């Protein structure tokens, strides 16, 4: 048939576009990974001049001026804090949405607003707010407040999707059997939505850990890792930055892989259970 061959041709063209884009998407990152292992005389481009862990060691033994460890620690703590807060706020907000309180329609759009508002505007606006109130900005107060507002919509949507998908009869059964609402939530609802909660925690962590624009305006004098990276890039691009980039990327991917593994094991364990 005539159209079948044509369709196969389309497949080849689309396939070439897709593979080409994937190569284009991965090539810069792979370049950076490779160059982070270049020798002591290695520059920021090829040739690598040998392979070594020199730039990672330099990262570890850094002196006062380009010490990335304090910002890295701050970023990590901030991300943990943001993750925990996002989980609490998202779960309660999504649970509240099931209660269809008055104005829940507008409430939904209010939370979604954080998704649409760009970081540069939110960060700048919040900086004005704190200045008017006379509050000194710092990474664990003002930057924290803004980071949560960024991760919250993602967590909220995740939790809404999870609550929409589970079987309400399970809760009804528990309540019919005399469990209080709180007990039913703790014993039935919470374990069922736990995968979504982990996803929300992951969003909260990685969105905060990688955030640049919102932090730039709100973190005060002690910056986070993205700010330190950008400041170093302003001074000079060194393979040390590639080492940081590779390390952070490896960390992000490691956390995702760990969570995926957890989901997979859980799904397998649930499948294994009788009836």
């Amino acid at each position, binding site marked *: 048939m005539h159209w079948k061959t044509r369709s196969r041709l389309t497949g080849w063209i689309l396939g070439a576009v897709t593979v080409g884009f994937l190569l284009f998407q991965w090539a810069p990152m792979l370049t950076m990974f490779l160059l982070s292992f270049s020798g002591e005389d290695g520059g920021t481009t090829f040739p690598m001049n040998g392979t070594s862990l020199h730039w990672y060691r330099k990262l570890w033994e850094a002196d006062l001026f380009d010490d990335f460890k304090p910002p890295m620690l701050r970023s990590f703590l901030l991300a943990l804090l943001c993750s925990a807060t996002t989980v609490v706020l998202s779960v309660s907000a999504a649970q509240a949405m*099931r209660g*269809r309180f008055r104005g829940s329609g507008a409430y939904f759009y209010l939370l979604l607003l954080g998704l649409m508002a760009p970081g540069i505007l939110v960060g700048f606006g919040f900086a004005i707010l704190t200045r008017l109130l006379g509050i000194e900005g710092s990474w664990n107060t003002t930057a924290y407040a803004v980071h949560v507002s960024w991760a919250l919509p993602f967590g909220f949507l995740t939790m809404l999707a999870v609550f929409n998908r589970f079987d309400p009869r399970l809760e009804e059964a528990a309540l019919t059997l005399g469990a209080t609402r709180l007990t039913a939530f703790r014993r*039935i609802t919470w374990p069922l939505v736990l995968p979504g909660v982990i996803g929300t925690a992951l969003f909260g962590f990685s969105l905060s850990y990688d955030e640049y624009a919102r932090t730039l305006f709100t973190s005060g004098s002690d910056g986070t890792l993205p700010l330190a990276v950008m400041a170093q890039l302003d001074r000079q691009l060194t393979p040390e930055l590639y080492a940081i980039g590779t390390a952070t990327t490896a960390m992000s991917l490691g956390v995702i892989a760990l969570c995926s593994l957890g989901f997979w094991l859980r799904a397998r364990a649930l499948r294994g259970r009788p009836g």
Partner: protein
Amino acid sequence: MSTIRPGSPAAFWLALPAGLWMVGAVVLPVLLIAWVSLWGGQAVSPDSPLTLDNYARFLSNGSYLRVIGDTVLQTITIMAVTGVLGYCIAYFLTVKVTRPRWRLALFLAFVIPFWTSTLIRAIAFVPFLGVNGVLNAALMALGVVERPVQAFLYSRLGVSMAQVSLYTLLASGPVVYMLNGIPPALREAAMTLKAPPRTVFRRIVLPLTLPGIVIGQVLVLLNVLADFITVTTVGGNKLAFLGNLILLFYEGSQIRATAVVSVLLMLMMLAGVAVALRVVDVRRMGG
């Protein structure tokens, strides 16, 4: 019956913290920007009289107007490129790849970089695009060019390449979602009725994925309009879009000018979203 009673005070109290957080950290700051942009007078303070002078001053400067034009042009360019690329990739991954294992592998290869830092990904473009960079080396090895191309790094071309790489997933994701929602029976019915593939695509697939295209375009629009990181890392301060102008004014402590540019940026975003809402009813997408 569920663990929360409809319309109960509990629901209200559970909703309150997140709502207050969003009002305090997003709504109020954005409203403050609009207010500050209207401040007149000598001293920068809340007691200032409200005027439109700041806007008039900004919009009467030719080079600032050029920045607005550049930003719009850049945004439209990236929207077009990521739109076409994203649709092709979405269509290939959901329709053309039939083996589940391959589909998963390609899909992961597409999505995973999105989970890593945008800043790091933008920086990674520097050694990729440079004169001694990988792209030039590859082009010379293939014999496409004889000498390394200077124009990749610190140029509009380089910024565009980085932005396309960063934002194509945003254009593609909603299309994948919509494509997955099309019952195969629809296409089969059309083909049984002897519609050629082009007609099936134009009359069935394209209209059904249109909401996905529009949502993807809105996401790309919002991100490119506000993007200043790619421009500073890959563009090397030789270029400026509105986002960079905001940063520049802010670092120069010109709060009112910063607010003016922010409001203009916001208006452009709202205009884009309004156009999108006219094209499709986004609320119908979930249903």
